[in-house]
């Protein structure tokens, strides 16, 4: 393999990693705070992608601008998800919680199938086929935009979690729910807003993804599985872990794809998952609890 192809795979992997990170971070945030696994995460991504598509198809809105509309809508979805479903699911055993979000995932997929049919929809912009040459590597403009925007948002999220009072209360709840409650933090409120932020990140990811990919009712499922691998590799509930996991998965996929056949490349993230579960079951960036 030539150096040019290696560099192409490297840059492609980093960009994929950044977008995967954006998707995974919402999942890990919700888990970190509420200890609930949201199997419908990918379906909310699908909804955000359809929002991006329809804003472009019906109103000619550029997907980058559509982020401004999709993010509040997805945050509302998150609040609705908490108030309407998760709030009640928190009181039942974990296995039932999983069944609830899994059911929601299937429901949303089939609703989308009824409303939008199974056909793929594409957003076609002049920049869809544009590429920027960085030395021997050509980066597609939509991919580059998605990668950069993901990094920006991840930085913003990091600052929110580590530098604001809201972030402090979130971290407090995630460390000790009872302790936080005793200190006067309203648990319900923190849960509601964590869900809003966790799902809201998909409002950014959706329009970016649809401009480089396509959207159909099952597109979310492609990413749900990957997001789970990422958060488990990085450590469930860890922000940095999700980011690290995303980069590892993105790079591993891309580099393995350049060397081997696609089936082999697709198995690499799962091999990593098995290795991590065997060697460091708590994830790369989470310290084992005493």
């Amino acid at each position: 393999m030539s150096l040019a192809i290696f560099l192409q795979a490297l840059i492609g992997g980093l960009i994929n990693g950044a977008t995967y990170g954006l998707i995974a971070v919402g999942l890990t945030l919700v888990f970190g705070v509420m200890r609930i696994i949201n199997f419908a995460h990918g379906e909310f991504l699908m909804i955000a992608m359809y929002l991006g598509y329809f804003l472009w198809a019906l109103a000619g809105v550029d997907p980058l601008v559509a982020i401004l509309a999709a993010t509040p809508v997805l945050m509302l979805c998150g609040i609705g998800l908490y108030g309407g479903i998760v709030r009640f699911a928190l009181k039942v055993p974990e296995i039932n919680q999983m069944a609830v979000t899994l059911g929601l995932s299937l429901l949303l997929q089939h609703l989308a199938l009824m409303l939008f049919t199974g056909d793929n929809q594409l957003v076609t912009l002049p920049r869809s086929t544009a590429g920027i040459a960085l030395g021997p590597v050509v980066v597609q403009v939509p991919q580059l935009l998605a990668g950069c925007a993901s990094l920006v948002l991840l930085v913003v999220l990091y600052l929110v979690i580590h530098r604001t009072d809201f972030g402090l209360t979130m971290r407090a709840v995630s460390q000790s729910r009872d302790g936080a409650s005793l200190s006067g933090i309203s648990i319900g409120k923190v849960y509601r807003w964590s869900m809003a932020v966790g799902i809201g990140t998909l409002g950014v990811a959706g329009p970016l993804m649809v401009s480089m990919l396509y959207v159909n009712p099952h597109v979310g499922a492609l990413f749900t599985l990957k997001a789970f691998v990422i958060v488990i590799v990085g450590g469930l509930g860890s922000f940095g872990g999700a980011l690290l996991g995303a980069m590892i998965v993105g790079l591993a996929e891309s580099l393995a794809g350049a060397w081997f056949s696609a089936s082999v490349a697709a198995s690499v993230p799962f091999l990593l998952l098995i290795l991590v579960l065997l060697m460091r079951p708590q994830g790369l960036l989470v310290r084992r609890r005493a």
Partner: protein
Amino acid sequence: MQAFRTLRALAACVAFTSLAAGHAQAQETVKIGVLVPITGAHAADGNRLLRAHQLAADQINAAGGIKSLGGAKVELVVADTQSKPEVSRSEAERLISRSKVSSILGAWTSAATIPAMQVAERYRTPFIVTSAVTDAITEKNMKFVFRVSPKSSWAAENVIDFIELLRTRNVKIDRIALAFEDGPFGQSATTAYKARLGAKGIAIVAEESFRTGSPDLGTQAAKLKASGADLVLVVAYVDDESVLLRAMASQQYRPLILGYGGGHVHPTLLQLGELAEGTYGVVEWMPDLKKPSTEAFVQAYRAKYNDVPLSNAAQAYAATWVAAQAVNDAGTASDTVKVRDAMKAIRIADGPASLLPNDALAFNDQGQNEVGNVIAQVIDGKFVTVWPDAVAARAPVLRN
């Protein structure tokens, strides 16, 4: 959703039985078994096939039914495979032993077709394979199995014929690359391509595979570009193909593209606009084939369902007419061996069943209809049949 599908299937069954009851008062009907997936993963495809079967049956009955049996009406007995091979087998048995059908048409995928056709062979009832393309189906020396659709490996042969035609017209094709989806679909089609290109001594300069749903195919595009291929044979679903074409365009790499089957000749591809323009695709049938029977079928289908039929609908439609004509020629619907003998002798060069892209629908010694594929090109944002000349709507737009 499952419950809804079951309900819908039930409703369909009730509709057909009540239809049948209406005819039964007049005289014995000619029963034709239709084995399709009405529920399960392939429900959408099965329901599309059913529409075409139903359209053919309605037309046969409107034209006076089966003439040699005093105008007996055709009655479709529909059975649901539930997209499962084992159900397909048991339903085929039920159609033959309980419903006493004169022949069976079906059953969408090769996996569901093979067990059902074995049942038909055992019970000596003709089985017309409408859409399954696995080569082996008509290579097992079955006496009661017929197929209107082509063998899958013939697509590769047709593509090579087309490449040679382009070469004679001074289109530069010296280096060929393969880009395929790394699943059963992509792998089997690519194997056929490799075997046949190898036999012709045509070198393959690159083979790039990808998983369906990859968000970035930049590396694959870069490797294809580095191979210097001037024709890329793509075997992929339309969503992945659009990602690949965009990645190639962003690297200023615009070779000739020849896609495969319904994965390429798909409305989604046209959303790519200028990028899809000029690309070719090999496909079993096109609604614009230059044949009077195709025109009539597309018109009737549109009038009844307000939709454009896909290639498998044309195959299902032709199979229904063949089943009716075999009963007519045999002069009996109950002696299925005679129906089989009549089917073997069939040769339909005009009329509704002649809409597939060969001169005449007929079965060879193996029960296989010798029908090739056609090549469609995107011209002015539409799929247009450009090859073979006999049925082409227009000549290919060449870029030299």
